[in-house]
């Protein structure tokens, strides 16, 4: 939908400045775009291409490699149920099935009200707490069917807004480049790169 806003362009430039080569900032900038719009819009990719001096095809090539980037709208909340081995052993599939019934969509689908997207995902590094899931990449452990229903109810009523931002936002806190940033290696690499 949208190019990056002016505010986000400023953040983008700060991010680019922390890498010796602009293209390295591609994935962080895609996250930024996804944070802005909830998904990665075509215009945003073209804008990012400009910012890091590559073609839009290269941006899309990189972006589409990574599962977290969505190129169409998804729900306000992405619910990722792990079904990998440790969770499978502890009921991950049953949890997923329960979730499918509860939300009325299959894994991969988005509810009609645009609130929830359900996904069947690979290991999310919570294996000892199986079955586990993430809501917009925030964890819930040892989730039972009843737990799941509670989560949905809480999310629907905005009771978790303090903890779980809408889809697209990862860390709510950013690294900041201050005057203590040295830039030694960045400049050294630029010297190596320049002919």
């Amino acid at each position: 939908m949208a190019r990056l806003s002016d505010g986000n362009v400023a953040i983008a430039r700060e991010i680019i400045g922390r890498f010796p080569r602009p293209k390295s900032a591609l994935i962080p900038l895609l996250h930024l775009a996804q944070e802005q719009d909830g998904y990665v819009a075509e215009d945003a990719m073209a804008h990012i291409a400009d910012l890091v001096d590559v073609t839009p095809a290269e941006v899309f090539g990189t972006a589409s490699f990574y599962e977290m980037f969505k190129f169409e709208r998804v729900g306000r909340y992405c619910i990722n149920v792990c079904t990998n081995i440790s969770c499978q052993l502890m009921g991950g599939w049953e949890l997923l099935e329960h979730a499918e019934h509860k939300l009325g969509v299959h894994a991969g689908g988005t509810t009609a009200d645009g609130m929830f997207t359900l996904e069947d995902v690979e290991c999310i590094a919570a294996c000892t707490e199986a079955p586990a899931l993430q809501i917009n990449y925030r964890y819930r452990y040892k989730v039972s069917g009843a737990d799941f229903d509670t989560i949905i109810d809480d999310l629907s009523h905005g009771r978790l807004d303090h903890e779980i931002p809408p889809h697209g936002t990862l860390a709510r806190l950013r690294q900041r480049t201050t005057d203590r940033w040295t830039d030694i290696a960045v400049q050294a690499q630029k010297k190596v790169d320049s002919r």
Partner: protein
Amino acid sequence: MSDTDTEATVPAPVPKTTVSITVDGKPHEANPGQLVIDACEDAGVFVPRFCHHPRMAPVGMCRQCLVEVQGPRGPMMVVSCMTVVSADQAVLTDTPTVKKAQEGVLEFLLANHPLDCPVCDKGGECPLQDQAFSHGPGESRYVEAKRNYEKPIPISDLVFLDRERCILCDRCTRFAKEVAGDPLIHFTSRGNDTQVQTFPGDPFSSYFSGNTVQICPVGALTAKPYRFKARPWDLDQTRSTCTTCAVGCQTVVQSSRDELLRYQGHDDDDVNWGWLCDKGRFGFESPNSDQRLTDPLVVAHGSLSTTTWNAALDAATKLIKKAIADGGPTKLAVIGGARLANEDATAWARLAKRVIGTPHVDAQLGDGLPVELLGLPRASITEACSASTLVLLGPDLKEELPVLYLRIRDAAEKRTIRLIEISPTQTGLSKYAYTSIRSAPGEQAGAVRQLLIDEAEQLAKGQVVVVAGRSNLAESPTFTMDALATLQAGVTGLKVLPALRRGNIVGAIQAGLTPGDGGRDTAGILRDAAAGHIGCLVLLGADPLSDFPDYELARQGLAGAGSIIAIDTFLTSSSAMATVVLPAAGYGERAGSTTNIEGRVLPLTQKVNPKGVSRPDWMIARDLSDRLGGDLGIESLDDAHDLYMALVAALAPSSMPLSNSSSLPPTRGGYDLRLVVGHNLYDEGVALRTSPSLSELSRGAHARLHPIDAGRLGAINGTRVRITARSGRTLTIPVFADDAVPQGLVAVAANQRDQISDLIDIHAVTNDVKVDLA
């Protein structure tokens, strides 16, 4: 860095220049640094491969080329395309393990590959098909559903992609990024869903897209101009040279049933490394065009009508004789010849200068440089690409000499050369340049003087080569020559690679299609003709009305000539004004040779019969000479070739410094913008107009202005503006803001549908125009 004059005095021991390895037990001497796959091939053992391509960096991803190498812990499986030979390496290509692995990879590749060979363009020349026959496991054990994609989708105006056939070898995508520098196609998604795609709304409109079709090891990429035209086994082929521009790319010309069907790049170390630009590659459509001239034409009852060779040659002879009778041989003038083969040009130069005796001969159409340029010590393309400094003093090579652009881009990208560019606007090479200097029309020499100061150290480091040509048709060539003279005076041992664009312009010049003593160049000839001083004007494949920078002069010249004889392959707007039109054999229809910008004499091969009764140009010259009672000294193609080669042999590089006129550009009026006119690859030239697949690709004339200048006009992209020349003539075309154009300049491409040549005064040293909203 150590100082270069403190060279070691002890002679270094002569290093062994080869690496001893064994391939399947047989000893072989490989080149140091060579890849195992190539060494095996040299040793006579072909290792199957799909992703490996000798002109691109190895990626080792298809895994077809697995071999075993004897290591400390027994044989190790490696990909031969990414393993470098090492001393005493024992390479095993046919052990049971290798065979099993190779068959396994092939089975994997075929798992998802459709079984549509019978309707596939690649069928019959498909490496995958061949491999499947020779190494394949036979019946497939893969019973699951195959990948399913929308069948061929256009990824550009010229290329289709069938993702079901694609084996993801990364050749096309690597080519786009590494070789062409146009990464507009890319792998997308991951794993088994990986596919090649363009970005939505951003097609693969690279000038070099056709190469991907050639290097695709399956039938995934197909070229629109060739799709379903023929099956490979019906094709008959021969080696030749592309004459679309003067780079001299080596080609394979393929035909079937006396029709040209395809050009492929031939891998030649010196010139094109196997690549072609799309204009050259798909230009085979033009000679096949049904608009081709097939018969001689003579004006009868006020219009051109078909006649016989005898009648036409008689008519032409009469016109020539009449001109001579009216005022001597100098009443006759010849324009053109860059389309001709060396032999044709030799015959025509002799006809004009010796048989008829006129010095008014010029193969350049006001867009070249004085012929002294070719007398300077010449650099080859490879020398240019391995110089320590390469100075670009000429046009945008990407637009005018595309494969030279590829070679230089490659060298600049790999940083084997330092590229210094002096040009009025940014070019395709600017972003690869070490420095890219903007110099307004006429200020080249000044820029060179500054360069000699600023980069003195770099210029003294080693060989300097300059690529010299016309960066602006709307300025006097003197400026470029002065800049060249300045550079020559400031750099020792300077070598020049001429950036002249027209197909065989170098051959034509070397053959003598240049003004003789007291002879006029094209502009002079047209001016004389306009003044009524030319009794007979011969257009040798030339179309001044669309192809000469000053349209008004061309128009007046053609109108004022006593008569016009045109020798051409098409009836152009200029040849349509002729009294006699003689049809010439086209590309692929005649044998001979051509000379590229390096001075390399390269073969042209006849592949099909000339269209209609058209004839090679040298024959036409001979016939006219006979009728004029002269002695051309050419009875056969070989005669002409020998004469040409003798001329070439007699050429010696001049050690004379170029003269420097120290011209300065006039100051620009306050409201004026200075005009810069260069070429776009896709223009309205006859070869493009008559190639249906290419004819739609020219953008049409448009002006480019610096965003500030555009802003001041109040123009947004696409706004139509009126450009007014000093002469008062105007042209109304759309404008685009482009920061590649410095402030104060307006850039317009030559020879587009709306002709900027309408506005250019070829005798003005610069052309200043006013631009305002239409």
